């Protein structure tokens, strides 16, 4: 082949290549006169639709007396198990076996004995807590086990303290769903001032943990001279147990949390509210408020002033941290990935929970349900990483205590946004009197963290810790807000939270605001491009062959 011919062929290749680049079909193209059609949400996809209220135990809603324990009505969709409440009030040692059988509590989960001050209630309390992993991994396949959905289809790995339980941890042997007692958040624990309380951590988990009683009056060492502050260097290892001992002299809304690898373990969910109630006669307390929310057996002090009491536990999840326990099963790998590979200073909060759920699941068990002219006590704890700014629409409430210390009435503040730093608690007096200040009247009033991220689930609205202060008459017989059916159809759907559905994909404006479809491919362009590429390859082969032939000669 002559030099001239080579040059000519090279020029041809260069020209063809430039043409190919110019004409190459791309992943995205500009539409000309007609943009693509609108694509609508798939309404036939029933697998991902979730019933707003499963209504599993309607009989649990009514006010009732179990084993002589008065249990207030709870009109919400998912009321607490009243047998759990009766057992939490009397102790596993004092309730009837028939009641205990209706719970998942172990027989030594909560023993209450000895009326030391002779005022009609037990004063020696033994509480046993286990550490439970939710949405954890399994070597037996590509699925999660002991699942707990915080929102439709959202299953971040979580750790919680749970009252010592018994029997199946799953709903049944063919299910991977955790039994209802194993859930976020870690349970609210209530004890009486001056009681002798023994809190035993039985570490059923595969990593070490402790219990640190934040703000609760406790000596630094227990009666055995061992650690009583739950610090990192006194970790309770897997399969071991340790008892913390307290006799709290001061009443108020406090916390308990793990202090091992604190940043990570706290963010995994090992934190809860610990409330010390004033010592009063005949003050049988609801020791566990599983899942937080409404307290169906309030203390003597609360009952004096308030008609209802709620515990509100705000919590956030970093999805990358949560995923560590789902990606590996080997405890050594989990330990390494969580403590050393994961860097919390380069992380975000993605999920925002109120009482273990994100909207719309908050509607099932995290609503405040009120009538007009009620005095309602709220205990709010911020157990998330960032500060919260809680706003209750249509209401202004009054701060009665900060971090478990009462505010003198003269300096109590009434306002509509409550800023709470991480680990802080406030007690609120919510008055539902339609007076233009405390309440603007009945409604389905939203309440939420006003920090913009707080009302999202992984950035998607509406989600996060949004919930509703609902006036009773606006709820249906299952405790769900009336007049919201269409909205529910859209939100109680795994596809919505998987971000597969258009926000305004249904109704009158769907043709205008649902998803834009795909552009039709330009076949002329594709064929030209294909031909050009083919030509280039052909010419190249020709050159190679000619070169080889030249060498042989």
């Amino acid at each position, binding site marked *: 082949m002559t030099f001239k011919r080579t040059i000519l062929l090279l020029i041809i290749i260069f020209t063809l290549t430039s043409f190919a680049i110019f004409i190459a079909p791309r992943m995205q193209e500009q539409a000309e006169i007609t943009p693509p059609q609108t694509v609508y949400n798939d309404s036939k996809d029933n697998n991902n639709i979730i019933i707003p209220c499963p209504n599993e135990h309607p009989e649990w809603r009514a006010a009732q007396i179990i084993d002589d324990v008065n249990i207030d009505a709870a009109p919400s969709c998912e009321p607490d198990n009243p047998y759990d409440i009766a057992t939490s009030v*009397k*102790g596993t*040692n*004092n309730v009837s*076996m028939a009641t205990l*059988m209706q719970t998942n509590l*172990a*027989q*030594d989960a909560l*023993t209450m*004995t000895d*009326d030391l001050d*002779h005022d*009609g209630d*037990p004063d020696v309390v033994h509480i046993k807590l*286990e550490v*439970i*992993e*939710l949405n*954890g*991994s*399994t*070597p*037996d*396949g*590509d699925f999660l*086990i*002991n699942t707990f959905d915080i929102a439709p289809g959202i299953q971040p790995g979580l750790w919680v303290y749970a009252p*010592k339980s*018994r*029997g*199946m*941890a*799953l709903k*049944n*042997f063919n299910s991977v769903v*955790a039994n209802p007692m*194993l859930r976020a958040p870690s349970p609210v624990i209530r004890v009486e001032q001056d009681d002798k309380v023994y809190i035993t951590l*039985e*570490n*059923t*988990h*595969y990593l070490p943990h402790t219990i640190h009683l934040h703000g609760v009056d406790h000596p630094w060492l227990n009666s055995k001279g061992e650690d009583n502050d739950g610090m990192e260097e006194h970790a309770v*290892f*897997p*399969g*071991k*147990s340790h008892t913390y001992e307290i006799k709290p002299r001061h009443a108020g809304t406090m916390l308990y949390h793990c202090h091992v690898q604190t940043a990570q373990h706290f963010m995994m969910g090992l934190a809860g509210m610990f409330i010390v109630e004033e010592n009063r006669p*005949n003050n049988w307390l609801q020791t566990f408020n599983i899942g937080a929310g409404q307290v169906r057996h309030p203390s003597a002090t609360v009952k004096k002033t308030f008609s209802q009491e709620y515990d509100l536990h705000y919590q956030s999840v970093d999805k990358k941290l949560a995923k560590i326990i789902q990606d*590996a*099963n*080997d*405890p*050594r*790998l989990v330990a390494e990935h969580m403590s050393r590979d994961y860097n919390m200073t380069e992380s975000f909060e993605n999920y925002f929970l109120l009482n273990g759920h994100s909207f719309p699941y908050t509607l099932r068990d995290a609503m405040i349900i009120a009538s007009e002219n009620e005095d309602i006590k709220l205990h709010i704890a911020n157990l998330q990483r960032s500060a919260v700014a809680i706003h209750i629409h249509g209401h202004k409430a009054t701060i009665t205590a900060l971090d478990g210390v009462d505010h003198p009435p003269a300096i109590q503040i009434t306002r509509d946004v409550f800023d709470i730093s991480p680990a802080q608690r406030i007690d609120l007096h919510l008055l539902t009197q339609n007076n233009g200040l405390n309440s603007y009247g009945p409604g389905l009033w939203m309440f939420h963290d006003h920090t913009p991220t707080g009302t999202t689930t992984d950035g998607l609205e509406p989600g996060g810790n949004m919930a509703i202060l609902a006036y009773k008459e606006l709820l249906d017989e299952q405790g769900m807000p009336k007049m919201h059916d269409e909205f529910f159809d859209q939100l109680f759907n795994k596809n919505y939270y998987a971000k597969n559905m258009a926000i305004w994909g249904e109704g009158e404006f769907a043709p205008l605001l649902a998803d834009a479809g795909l552009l039709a491919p330009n076949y002329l362009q594709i064929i030209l491009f294909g031909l050009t590429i083919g030509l280039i390859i052909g010419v190249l082969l020709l050159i190679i062959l000619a070169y080889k032939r030249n060498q042989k000669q």
Partner: protein
Amino acid sequence: MKALLLVLCLLGVNHFASAMNHSGMIMDEKGMIMNANSDKLPNDCKKISENIDITIHAGHKHALKFNGKMFAFDNQEWDVKPCAKINITFINDDQIRHQLMIHGLPGYLYPEGMFHLELNGEGQLQASLIMPSQKKTYLVHCELPQHMEKGMKAQLKVDGGDGDLPSIPGLTAPVRADFYFVDWTQLSLSVLVFSALLGCTISFFIILNRTRIKDLFTKYLIRSTQKGG
């Protein structure tokens, strides 16, 4: 009020002492036994074939012999004859709760197909069960969240069993295995490079000597056909 409390406490004590026997469940402060069966024969068994005593320990220390586990039983497999009666002594060596569950048993003898021992902490329990005659492998595990996943899993075979279950520590592979880093050293890298070079050399050698190799091959073929013929 004091009297009431006393009564309550007495009642409490009473519960502990008497233990509850509730549809196949015996429960006390130590733990519980569900669906124990020491005398009812399965329909397919005429008599008990053998009487076996098995002691099963549970605890974190039994996981020490398995890499990457946290909780385990001291044994991972048992094999019994059809219609065997197994007397289990379940010993918990930890300070926390552990269970011993056997699944897949006939429902008419064992409600929900389950035999279940549970110890609230350190201690031991004893209970028996009678296996059917079918050749089958039964899952034995502790169902506390992450206990089976972290190693507390075993299998009970009747008549050699009908296969193995996955993810049994030291016995069978997991379905979803973890990823670990490979220990790439200078030595293993040089082995890799050397093998690649060797491969190249071999191919060059073959190409350069292709005629001679062809000859050798044909000769060999001819000779072998002659021998065969």
